[in-house]
């Protein structure tokens, strides 16, 4: 990776992190999603195709990664930007399944660093309350942005951008040392591929825990499953079928409510 590429990716790691200056709607929930992050990394590194190949499974894997009550279990922004960049830099000469496995490993490293930094910033922000209190005591409405935005984001930026630069720089240095594909033994890449394929079940399993509210719901889930396995429909086709079904369901349920049959 070139220096400007490292800086750009680190900048997006910061923007996509939770509580960045552009807000969680555009940051954490948009730039921080693996699907979007992989496109961004792909554009920066000039390899959109590989980036999307690893980005799609990463998105599936981390689909269940929501932040109830702001509890960050895993820093998605860190995980995906580092994961996708790692897969592109080190994945030369590996096949698709192995590249994905590699992305999963790098995402794990990135996610861990991100989570540590999140905890650091969460603690470092504490003294800001004293500053805010001082301004509030004297009714300084115009200065309330200082503790919140100026100070809070100086800490946030330092905790996200700098570690990301360090991780990305060491990755670049390591990749220049030797041909990665040649030095890892075959069984490791095979295991990585197997692991990557299985990891998708984690994302799906967690999402199911939000969606499965009644026991019979599992049949609806199975409907989507067999549309792919028995009927060989693409996921896009199933999405269209799902939208139609949902609309019919909504109309049917609304009508029942009106007639008072339910």
């Amino acid at each position, binding site marked *: 990776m070139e220096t400007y590429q490292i800086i750009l990716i680190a900048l997006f790691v910061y923007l996509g992190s939770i*509580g*960045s200056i*552009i*807000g969680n709607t555009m940051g*954490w*929930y*948009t730039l921080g999603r693996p*699907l979007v992050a992989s*496109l961004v990394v792909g554009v920066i590194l000039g390899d*959109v*195709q590989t980036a999307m190949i690893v980005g*799609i*499974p990463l*998105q*599936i894997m981390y*689909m269940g*990664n*929501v932040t*109830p009550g702001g509890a960050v279990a*895993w820093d998605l922004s860190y995980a995906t930007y580092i994961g996708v960049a790692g897969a592109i830099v080190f994945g030369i000469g590996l096949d698709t399944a192995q590249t994905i496995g590699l992305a999963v490993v790098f995402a794990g490293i990135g996610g861990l660093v991100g989570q540590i930094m999140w905890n650091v910033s969460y603690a470092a922000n504490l003294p800001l309350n004293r500053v805010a209190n001082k*301004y*509030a005591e*004297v009714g300084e*409405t*115009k200065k309330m*942005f200082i503790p*919140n935005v100026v100070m*809070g984001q100086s800490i946030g930026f330092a905790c996200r951008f700098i570690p990301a630069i360090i991780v990305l720089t060491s990755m670049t240095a390591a990749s220049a040392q030797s041909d990665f594909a040649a030095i890892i033994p075959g*069984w490791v890449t*095979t*295991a990585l591929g197997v*692991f990557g394929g*299985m*990891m*998708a*079940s*984690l994302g*799906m*399993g*967690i999402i*199911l*825990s*939000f*969606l499965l509210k009644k026991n019979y719901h599992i049949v*609806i*889930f*199975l*409907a989507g499953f*067999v549309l*792919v*396995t028995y009927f060989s429909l693409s*996921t*896009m086709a*199933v*999405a269209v*079928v*799902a939208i139609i079904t*949902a609309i019919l*369901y909504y109309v049917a349920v609304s009508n029942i*409510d009106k007639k008072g049959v339910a």
Partner: protein
Amino acid sequence: MTKKISEKTLKKSFWNWFLWHGCSQQAESMLGMAFAQSMAPVIDELYDNKEEKAEALKRHITLFNTEPQVGSICNGVVCGLEEANANKACTPELISSVKVALIGPTSAIGDSLWVATFIPILLTICLSISQASPVTSWLGPVLYMIVYPLGTGILSWNLFKLGYKSGIEGMQGFMSTGKLNTLTDTMTVLGLIVVGALTASFVTASVPFRIVRDVFDATQGIILENQVIFEADIMLDSIFPKILPLFLTLGVYYLYSKRKWSPLKLMGLILIIAGVFTFVGYVTGFYV
């Protein structure tokens, strides 16, 4: 003269919140400082002397937390209450207690309906678009980057206005309409079908077990070397295609949802399973 918050100030308050709700979160007041910043322009307009402003700011730097996108309704409600308070139609105590009371329901609705249901569904639709062809795989993320922030922004601003207009009643009215339940159920149906399809397409797991033998071909009278006479995967797939990924996913769901395993623990389990499967695969000659 009755005091009224101008449209411009309301917008300023909203943007302060929409962009900077998470800028200084910490364990002491959570989003308290961000909430106070959102209220600052409103307070500035409603109250005349420093003492009143200080009083108002102090009640808003206290602990506050919510799912910020849907939770913008809280800011709207508090704007409405502050306006009433400035006109002596409300008390500071009521503002504080309403604010605290709103934390629970808005967090719950925001997290479950928006973050845990809407985002995954929108993502899965965009994923399917990306997956359709490698050439147009950029289309999915681009669509998401447009639809999600725009849709959420519009929703958030309208909830803010709804909160402001109707104060406390607005919140109760929103919660009690049966429409919300029907809508949630509909989203669930949509989500489940798509998640089923994604599971079938993306979770891969095979039983790396095959029996390889040299077989004597009686018709030609020769020995055929290394013939696969049993392949676990093919047998399983003939019963129910992709049965292993299905059970793996449902197993993870069970452990996460019913047994409360953490994602990290599950990751470890999957790593172990993958390791064992790879090992078995090498032993039985599935991987060479």
